[in-house]
C-alpha cells in the first residue's frame, strides 16, 4: 500500500511507514502498556495506531510512523532522521512483539475502523486487543 497522505506542509506529500506488532494473547497487557508508553514518549515524530485486528493466535496492532515530507526525506532533514531513529527505537523496544514492516491497512477495512476508535491509552488498547484475542 502506498503510504502517502496530504501533509501539512503545503501540497507536499508525507511518507508514512507501517509497523505491525503481533503479541500473543498472553502478552496483551504488557504489549498495550509498552505501545502506549513508547507512543506517548515519542514527540519527535507522529505515531498513531491505524489498525487493530487478529491473525492466527496473535493480535495485530499496526502503527503508522510519519517519516516526513518528500523534501525532508530526500534532503536528509533532521526531522526525518529523528523519525527514522524512532522507527529503530520502536523495533528495538517492542522486539518481544515481533515488530515488522507492513502495508498500512485499507482505511475502509475493519482493522482500520477499530484502529481509528482506539487511542493510545493503555487500558483502551488492551481492552480492544483482549476482545479481538477472545473473539478469534
Amino acid at each position, binding site marked *: 500500500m502506498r*503510504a502517502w497522505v496530504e501533509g501539512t506542509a503545503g501540497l507536499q506529500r508525507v511518507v508514512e511507514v507501517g509497523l505491525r506488532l503481533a503479541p500473543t494473547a498472553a502478552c496483551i497487557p504488557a504489549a498495550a502498556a509498552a505501545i502506549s508508553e513508547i507512543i506517548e514518549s515519542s514527540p519527535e515524530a507522529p505515531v498513531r495506531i491505524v489498525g487493530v485486528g487478529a491473525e492466527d493466535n496473535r493480535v495485530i496492532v499496526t502503527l503508522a510512523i510519519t*517519516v516526513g515530507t518528500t523534501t525532508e526525506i*530526500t534532503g536528509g532533514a533532521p526531522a526525518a532522521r529523528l523519525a527514522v531513529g524512532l522507527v*529503530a527505537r520502536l*523495533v528495538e523496544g517492542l522486539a518481544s512483539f515481533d515488530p*515488522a*514492516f507492513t502495508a498500512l491497512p485499507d482505511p475502509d477495512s475493519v482493522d482500520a475502523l477499530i484502529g481509528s476508535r482506539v487511542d493510545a491509552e493503555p487500558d483502551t488498547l488492551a481492552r480492544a486487543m483482549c476482545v479481538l484475542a477472545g473473539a478469534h
Partner: protein
Amino acid sequence: MSASTIGIDAELQSAETMDLDDDTIITATHRVGRKIPDMVVGDLTEREILAMAPAMVCDRIHWSTAEPMDLTALMSDLPLTARTRAWSDGQSRIWVDEGMGQQARELIREWCERHGVEVMNMRVEASVPFRDVDSIPHGLFGELLLATTDWLYPRTYAIRRKLVADLELIDDDDTRSMMYLFISDHADRFDADRVGRNGTLNFASFMLGKLRKWPQDAARAAWGRTLIDDHMHLNQAIDESMATLHRRPTEPELAARMKTSVSDLRKREFAIAEVSGMRNYDSIISGSMGEDSEGVDAPDSVDVSAEGTSFQVDAMLTKAIIDSIMAPTSTRGTSPADPMALATVYLSFWGEMSRQELATELGVLPKTAAASVQRVISQVGAAGIL
C-alpha cells in the same frame, strides 16, 4: 557552430556598457561572455599540436566484426594509401584518399574473406574529415585530449547529469573517461581555421558545442531514434500544455499536440514506459544477480511454514533493514539514520511501487532510488537474513 554561441556568460553585461578586452566575446544573445581559452600542453598550443595532423578530406570505410579486429595486417596488405585510428565504439574504420572509398571497400572485403574475417555492415562514407592524430609525436594528442577534458568536465555538470539519468548503465564515475573518448572521436571534425564573429574557433569551444547534444545522441544510439524522439516530443508537448493551460494535458489534447491519434499516442507512451522499465530493471528483485555479486539466497530457503516462525522471520527481516538504515557509513557521518533508504525500501516492498513510480514520487532519479534500495538489500543479504 561559432564561438559566439558557446562563450561562457560569466560576466553577463550589456555589450554597450563595457570595454572589451582580448578574453571577452559577444554571445549569440548579444551579451558579453568570456572566451574559452586555448589549450596548452607543455609549451605548445593546441593550434601547434593539431597542425602536426592537419585536417584532410577522405573516404571512410566503416564496418564491425564479431570479435575485435587488429587492422595492422590489413593495412600493410592494402595496395593504396590508408590510415586508421582507434574509435571508442570498437568498430573498424579505415580512411583512404577521397574518391577511393568504393575500391578500398572491395579490397578490404576480399582481404577479410581470404582471412576468414566475418564483417558486418561494411559501408563507405565519402568526403569526411580526418586527422591522422596517431602521427602527432610524444603523446601530445593524448595530453591535449586530457587537458580539454579537464577543462570541460567541471563545466558540463548538466550534460553529465542528463547522460547518467538517460542511460541506466552509465554512472557518474564513468563520465570523465567517456568524455575523453567522446572528444577523441570528434577531433576529426574540428576545423581550426573556421572563423566566426569572435575570431577563430578553438578546440574546447568546438567540443563544448558537440557535448551539448551528447546525451540525446547517446540515448538515441542506446534505445533507438524513434523512441527517444517520441519521448522528447511527448515531454515537449506536456511542457507546452503546462505553460499555456497550467495543467497536464488530457490524452486528446496531447494527441492533438503530437499530431497523432489517441490510440497511437497510447502505443508510443506504452513503448516509452516499457523501455523505462527495462532501464530501471532491478537484478536483485528479479533474482538474477551477476556471478560476482554477493550471494543473496531466494527467500524460499527460509522455512515459513509455522505461523509463529512467519512473524519472527518478518521481525528479523525488519530488524535487519533498520540496522542497515541506521548503520554508520562514510557518507552519512555522525547522524547515520537514512530517511531516503527507509522510504525507498518501504515504498518498494510494502508500498508496491516500481522504481519509476518511486522516483517520481520522491522527485529523484530512478537509479538513485534503485541504488538506495539496493544498498540496503545488499547489507541485509550480506548479514545472511535473506
